[in-house]
């Protein structure tokens, strides 16, 4: 499984855009990139998933360059409720039995 590296913590203010970059230099051809959000004592919540280029949904965007060795999760106009740990995960998907290997996530703190 590809190892990921992301910042341990980030601080932001309400209304700002937050970009969290994750490095995954040894990503394999059939690997997808998935981001989860986790609040204390709650289960990780799926945010977004992509394979290449750009993916956007109602809560975030995911930018993946052509070499796929990194990815950036973009959270537009964050609020206090976005304070959480964000995990970047890389792995082959499909066919069942594809465990997620959580690395050290990024603790995002949003202030007024």
């Amino acid at each position, binding site marked *: 499984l590809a190892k990921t590296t992301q910042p341990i913590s980030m601080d932001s203010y309400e209304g700002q855009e937050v970009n969290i970059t994750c490095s995954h230099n040894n990503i394999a051809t059939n690997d*997808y990139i*998935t981001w*989860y959000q986790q609040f204390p*004592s*709650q*289960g*990780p*919540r*799926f945010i977004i*998933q992509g*394979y290449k280029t750009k993916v956007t949904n109602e809560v975030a965007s995911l930018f993946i360059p052509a070499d796929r060795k990194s990815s950036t999760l973009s959270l537009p106009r964050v609020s206090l409720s976005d304070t959480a740990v964000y*995990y970047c995960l890389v792995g082959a*998907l*499909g*066919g*069942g*039995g*594809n*465990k*997620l*290997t*959580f*690395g*050290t*996530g990024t603790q995002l703190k949003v202030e007024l």
Partner: protein
Amino acid sequence: AAGVIQSPRHLIKEKRETATLKCYPIPRHDTVYWYQQGPGQDPQFLISFYEKMQSDKGSIPDRFSAQQFSDYHSELNMSSLELGDSALYFCASSTTRRGGETQYFGPGTRLLVL
């Protein structure tokens, strides 16, 4: 939309006791994963099942066992509990679909071993 259901949500046990955690996946999901998250730690994969067969195994102690039943719900059985087993236990479910697979997590079971 229906989510993953876990029961119980909280459990207190004594050392050397046994515990059974249950997971009910999202309807029509065929894969279940179990993760353990200790205090201040990241989730760690324990075991997974696909179509009622064990599909992968992680850092699950021999004292733990699990299975997936015909209705796709899963149970994690933990015996000879130790203090270090105190953690949040998450179940996630998924189904293989074109374009990838997304795991959806339940709210977790908080196990406290005294």
